[in-house]
């Protein structure tokens, strides 16, 4: 796992908008292969590096040059954690759709969409704020000292 350096916080917000759109398309069409692709993307960002996120590159090359520069930086750890939470929901959603458990697929995708939209619109990372609760029920989240 690579260690990412802090990032311009507007990049992840843009990325969250794109994720919201993708998840909305999945809900509307039930196109599980698209959700599977999003699941892989979540996994790459969470477990390897945020640099693998194509929306980050779109932001850096197409959007950032048009914006006023900012010195504000956001730590990578919360962002990676959020991608991990997204990965879990997207994986459950993909398995649900692919195996015919459409309701499960929709509910899991819906949860992921709610989290992505709150992140995009308000900059709020639901998974990060709820880390303590998640950790209480998922001991595997414990990080080695």
């Amino acid at each position, binding site marked *: 796992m690579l260690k990412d350096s802090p990032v311009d916080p507007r990049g992840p917000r843009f990325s969250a908008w794109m994720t919201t759109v993708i998840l909305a398309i999945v809900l*509307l069409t039930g196109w599980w292969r698209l959700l599977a692709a999003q699941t892989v993307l979540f996994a790459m960002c969470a477990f390897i590096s945020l640099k693998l996120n194509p929306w980050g590159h779109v932001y850096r090359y197409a959007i950032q040059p048009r914006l006023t520069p900012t010195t504000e930086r956001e730590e990578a750890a919360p*962002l990676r954690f959020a991608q991990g939470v997204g990965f879990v929901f997207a994986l459950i959603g993909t398995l649900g759709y692919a195996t015919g458990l459409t309701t499960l697929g929709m*509910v899991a995708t*819906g949860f992921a969409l709610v989290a992505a*939209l709150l992140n995009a*619109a308000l*900059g709020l990372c639901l998974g990060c*704020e709820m*880390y303590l*609760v998640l950790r209480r029920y998922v001991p595997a989240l414990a990080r080695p000292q």
Partner: protein
Amino acid sequence: MTGVWALVGALAVAGALAVLLKVREGRISRRPAAVDLPAPVRDLLAPGVTLVQLSTTFCAPCRHAKVILRDLADRTDGLTHAELDITNLPDVAASLGVMRTPTTLALTADGTEVLRVGGVPKRDSLLEALRPHLP
């Protein structure tokens, strides 16, 4: 058609959560029962009132809370700010009944909890609430 309703439902839930979280953000509360403070928190107590900010590695707004609280403590006599990373101290969170970060506890030198704030504190209302406990 079900997909459309699922999307509408998800948007409604997101809207409701956004309103709920905005309302609760920075809200000051007081807990009636006193608890035995865990040692890592007790070790941070200073004379006057100490704002003990509980954070985790995964908490983006903790940084904003730290800026506000540190500035408030620097400008206020008898007020100290201390941050405790509880990423690997779930027992501390559980014993204090803390479910989210940042949560800030205002504690007197003897460990009495004056109030607590969930989320990023609002500077003015926090100072107002702390006034009676400051020298």
